């Protein structure tokens, strides 16, 4: 074995951790875990070169290193700054950092439409979580927000540029995961927009992953568009034999219907393994998958709303006291309810449902 590498001792929010030279402050904080981890909107550990765009992960370096103990003059982006031996970093313990982060959130939300009630990402949106935790409740911006037209890129991906925060994650995904760059940033400054040059469709087996890496609702799955809210679906771990990818996914189900297939995301919102487009867009039937079990969702997430776990169902006693007769069902809800009808299989519709997908009834339009 080679000689043991010298580990750098870093102190983040007064917690000491030893990391290898070349590690960024963000990754050192992730090694500690918990509350000291700075939030990140653009950094993605699986994508090379990502980070440094959104400035959400700003931290204060109070002591540069053992050799040069001067503090860094400005707040630094922790995803791009590597650690030094003896470095001391303040994240949640520094009011300056908290204040700066509040400003960053305000900047990120300047042009964001805040159409969360319509957006499919709501409930699992990084920007929503970030602004909820660090943002202020009102904006001071008085000007017109930039708007773009919605674009279908390819058959399955909807690009809603208005919501984009220009984190460049999708560009790195298209660069590194696919063999031909089809996805990039056009124009500059405030006018910059993510796009495919001259509406070139994205025909690549892994391009669907841009949906998963997108921290906001700018890139969404067209096959699951407006089908259901994430918190009404039950995420289950599932896998299938796929010749292109690992096949390990999360199915978002309602009953036996598979509404959406995504990759498995860790607690930092990063996918564990990228999945291919066949798994993501074409396998919308429970029979295609081997279901492993319900996915563990943080209790604090809205997705866990209405998920009853560890429920002890009381013993049914009515049949016992009524000499084996089962109780008379006074109303079958499905005979009256128009929601979740077997005739309308929303998960099988290719794109979003429209008014002509629902059988006409006596309802007012």
């Amino acid at each position, binding site marked *: 074995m080679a000689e043991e590498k010298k580990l750098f001792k870093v102190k983040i929010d007064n917690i000491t951790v030893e990391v290898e030279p070349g590690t960024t402050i963000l990754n050192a904080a992730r090694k500690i875990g918990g509350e000291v981890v700075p939030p990140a909107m653009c950094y993605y550990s699986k994508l090379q070169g990502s980070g440094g765009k959104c400035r959400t992960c700003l931290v204060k370096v109070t002591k540069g290193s053992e050799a040069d103990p001067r503090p860094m003059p400005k707040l630094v982006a922790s995803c791009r700054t590597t650690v030094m031996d003896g470095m001391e970093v303040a994240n949640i313990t520094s009011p300056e950092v908290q204040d700066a982060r509040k400003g960053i959130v305000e900047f990120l939300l300047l042009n964001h439409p805040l159409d969360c*009630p*319509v957006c499919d990402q709501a409930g699992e949106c990084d920007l929503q979580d970030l602004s909820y935790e660090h943002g202020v409740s009102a904006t001071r911006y008085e000007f017109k927000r930039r708007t773009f037209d919605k674009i279908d890129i390819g058959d399955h991906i909807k690009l809603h540029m208005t919501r984009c925060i220009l984190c460049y994650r999708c560009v790195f995904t298209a660069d590194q995961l696919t063999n031909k760059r089809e996805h990039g940033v056009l124009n500059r400054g405030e006018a910059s927009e993510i796009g495919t040059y001259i509406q070139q469709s994205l025909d690549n087996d892994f391009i669907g992953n841009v949906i998963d890496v997108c921290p906001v609702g700018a890139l969404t799955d067209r096959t699951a568009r*407006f089908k259901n809210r994430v918190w009404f679906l039950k995420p289950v771990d599932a896998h299938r034999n796929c010749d292109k990818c690992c096949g390990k996914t999360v199915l978002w189900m309602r009953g036996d219907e598979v509404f959406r297939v995504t990759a498995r995301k860790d607690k930092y919102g990063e996918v564990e393994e990228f999945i291919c487009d066949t798994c993501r867009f074409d396998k919308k039937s429970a029979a295609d998958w081997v279901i492993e079990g319900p996915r563990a969702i943080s209790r604090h997430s809205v997705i866990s709303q209405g998920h009853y776990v560890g429920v002890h169902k009381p013993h049914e006693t009515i049949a016992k006291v009524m000499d084996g007769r089962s109780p008379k069902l006074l*109303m079958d809800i499905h005979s009256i309810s128009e*929601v979740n009808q077997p005739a309308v299989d929303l998960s099988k519709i290719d794109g979003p449902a429209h008014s002509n997908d629902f059988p006409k009834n006596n309802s007012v339009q």
Partner: protein
Amino acid sequence: MQTLTNRAKQVDRRPMTFMEKLYLPAILKGMGITLSHIFKKKATVNYPEEKRPFSPVFRGLHILNRDEEGRERCTACGLCAVACPAEAITMEAAERLPGEEHLYREEKYAARYEINMLRCIFCGFCEEACPKQAIYMSETFAPANYQRKGFIYGKEDLLIPDPKHPITVKK
């Protein structure tokens, strides 16, 4: 024994006095109280003809609101349903087609919207959760019905009539 409240009264077990044995004074006293109530203000109203005013904060039957141009405000965001402690609200969303802009305010709308009034506890959380001012609780209560299926309220029951396109009732 320690009493729970200081309002407990010891039962009087003494034998009745002569005046009490006569009964008549007590009966007359009781009749007097009854008589005096005839001239007092009534505590009840003659309900179907006369109705009490509702409090302005009364949480009654839900309505789905429209905007000034008569378009449906609801975008099927599901916040009312997730806020509902009784899980009474269900919905299915759809995308607005080109040409339907006069019907729906946003690009997404509720194609189906149902409230199970058997489950609803009229807590008003849905009204509070709504980000689009689409659902409101009106100052009336859900009418009685002979059958349970009459309590599943769909969009046709909840949506307020369009002021621009008055509907003709056929039933």
